[in-house]
């Protein structure tokens, strides 16, 4: 067994990942962290994310650095018919193919599921796309923000009476990646028990729709869209961010009567709890315009840390509203070791976000830095049975 794959529940599995969609790269990284040998197949010009965006580390975009650790890189120009034989030869040594090319492209390249299963009958073929492999939008170009818009997630996010806005993170890419990783493992489990491979279709749209749960039930039942309220909630009050004396913010959510009465106690505003306008949650929702300014004024009188200590001690759900710098220094985040230091010849010392699942028996690994373009092409081809002469021929024809 490859020594790089000793750790993690997926050790021994080989994955070929080819995805201009960011969701595919993140999905590949989740699997690679769990020990799978993930080969990133890039065109000779490189994965497009290597050069997207402003910030660069050792020549690569930080977007690329962030989503590609623990992988090996192989270049192969799939646009040329003569290279398809090489692709299929590689594929025959692979358990799982993760592609985010879109149905139009995989067909055009001659590497759709039907073509690939002829080479490897029990292949698990995971397609990640914006809308799905079939259906009215299947061939439409898509990415994270367009699917945030399409799925209704955007409609739930924004200022009061303002337009819908994006979630600050690429929530569609993450949703597709997480659901994709689940689907990949489930299909491999099925293959392990039955010997059968299959085509698995994961779309950002489906993943984002599932992420609406349980909002869709409320909206379908009432026929009413939920209003956007900034940090606040349409049907619980108080449930919002408040600014403290030092300009820092905290977020608290009172969704039970006990939380409200505890909050009034620690804010030393007993009159609010007795005020009939604010007695029950429906009262507070109705009279939120009167209540919120009173709370805002009170929060201005102490620092965020002072309030936080009191409110947390009263067992009311509450936390600092951290920017990313504060988040990464937050004592719980530090305790959870969510920041991983790695090193590479190209980048020097650099930091990435840790794997989100803690396997106590087979922990995630952080062994390989994101690969240089084509760094492992020769190594991968020779282990797939390509001889030195063949590799040279591919190199001469600019295939790799």
């Amino acid at each position, binding site marked *: 067994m490859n020594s790089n794959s000793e750790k993690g529940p997926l050790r021994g599995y080989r994955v070929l990942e080819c995805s201009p969609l960011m969701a595919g790269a993140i999905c590949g990284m989740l699997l690679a962290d769990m020990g799978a040998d993930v080969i990133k197949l890039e065109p000779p010009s490189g994965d497009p994310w290597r050069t997207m965006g402003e910030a660069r580390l050792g020549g690569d975009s930080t977007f690329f650095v962030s989503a590609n650790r623990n992988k090996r890189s192989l270049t192969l120009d799939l646009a040329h018919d003569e290279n398809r034989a090489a692709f299929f030869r590689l594929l025959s040594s692979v358990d799982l193919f993760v592609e985010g090319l879109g149905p139009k492209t995989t067909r055009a390249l001659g590497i759709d599921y039907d073509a690939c299963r002829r080479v490897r009958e029990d292949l698990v073929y995971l397609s990640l796309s914006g809308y799905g492999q079939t259906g009215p939008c299947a061939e439409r170009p898509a990415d994270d923000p367009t699917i945030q818009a399409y799925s209704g997630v955007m409609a739930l996010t924004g200022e009061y009476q303002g337009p819908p806005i994006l979630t600050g993170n690429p929530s569609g890419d993450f949703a597709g990646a997480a659901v994709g990783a689940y689907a990949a493992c489930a299909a491999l489990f099925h293959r392990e028990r039955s010997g059968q491979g299959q085509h698995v279709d994961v779309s950002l749209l489906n993943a984002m729709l599932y992420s609406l749960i*349980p909002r869709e039930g409320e909206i379908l039942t009432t026929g009413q869209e939920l209003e956007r309220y900034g940090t606040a909630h349409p049907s619980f009050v108080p449930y919002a961010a408040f600014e403290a004396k030092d300009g820092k*913010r905290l977020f608290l959510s009172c969704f039970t009567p006990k939380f409200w009465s505890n909050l009034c106690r620690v804010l030393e505003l007993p009159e609010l709890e007795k005020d009939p306008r604010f007695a029950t949650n429906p009262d507070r929702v109705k009279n939120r315009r009167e209540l919120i300014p009173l709370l805002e004024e009170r929060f201005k009188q102490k620092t965020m840390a002072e309030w936080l200590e009191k409110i947390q001690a009263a067992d009311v759900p509450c936390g600092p509203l951290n920017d990313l710098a504060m988040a990464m220094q937050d004592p719980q985040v530090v305790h959870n070791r969510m920041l991983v230091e790695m090193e590479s010849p190209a980048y020097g010392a650099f930091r990435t976000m840790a794997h989100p699942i803690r396997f106590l028996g087979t922990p995630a690994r952080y062994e390989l830095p994101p690969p240089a373009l084509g760094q492992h092409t020769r190594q991968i081809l020779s282990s797939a049975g390509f001889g030195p002469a063949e590799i040279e021929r591919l190199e001469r024809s600019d295939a790799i």
Partner: protein
Amino acid sequence: MNETKQILAGIRILDMSIMTAGPCGTQLLGDLGADVIKIEQPGSGDYSRGLGFTKIAGINTQFLSQNRSKRSLALNLNTPEGREVFFRLAPTADVAVENFRPGTVAKLGVDYDSLKRVKPDIIYISISAFGQTGPYSLLPANDPVVQAIGGLMSMTGEEGGGPVRVGNPAPDFGTGALVATGIMAALLHRQRTGEGQKLELSLLDTTLFSLVPMEGEFFMTGKLPPRMGSARKDFAPTGSFETAEGKWIYLSVLSEEPWAGLCTALERPEWHTDPRYRDNAGRVAHRAALAGEIRACLRQKPLAYWIERLDGHEVPWGPVHTVTEALHDPQTRHNGMLIDMQHPVAGKITLMGHPVKFERTPAQYRLPPPGLGEHAEGVLRDAGYTDEQIRTLRERKVI
């Protein structure tokens, strides 16, 4: 070849998790054929049965949304008899899931070590808001509190405005999806080695991971990601634009091919030759001017007109749907993402479908969300309890 069975046929999950994150994850596995036994507190059950404002025939939609494909067993784990029932079931289980506050399962005696004694290869998942240990581990929390602590809320909002809450329960969903991932990966490992293990997930860790790859620039430069409404800082044009009748369209131009496509689709060849907009860096530098031109253009015609113009060009775009529009959209329907089930009390209910299309082993929707304790008899009889024993347990309010 033998008849194809569902992926998780024969796998049993004892699910003590409540609210959204755990149940969303185990629902996925129930759809794949796992026997998910939802263990709930007698009397009250899962909190989500009593939360929220929308009900169908007295049942909260929040509970209905996330609990199909499960059987319910009301079981009081605070009593010795309840624990005894639990440990009769434990050896038949492959997976156990819980999201009590950290430390509770040890007090109840249903922690990993106790289960491992009766079922050495059990896979045990503990879900929490912040982690099993650490300074916040015992604090109460819900989804948006984690959005706030994890930095997500600070990255979301209008340019020049304050932070905004992500409107869907993103940390809950993300944790649910990763619970399903973790269970499947651990089952694979067990299948190949015979070893079980314990897994821990938290909403906080999930939320932080869900920032990838937006955290990379901050890690390198210390520069905080700005709030930019519906736009993306590194790319232009990106954002929603209003059309003639007040509906919005989203445009996402990250590189040159879609830029050329957009100029053609909107019949604005002069944009494509404008030196200010010659590459993404130029368009980002002149973001406001460009957005102004696009806004003025799109305002002139209704959404349907622009859809027709844009379709067929290599430009990622999409209508900004309301949730209702998204749910009734033809692609959503085509993907099977809205399903109807018959519920014995609520009648016909509409639920969100399974997000993955497994071509050979599709998700199946056999069981509607259960009534509290609805499957106690079946579960206990399978475990060897006699009708009389079951009656006694019921009288003593153990089940």
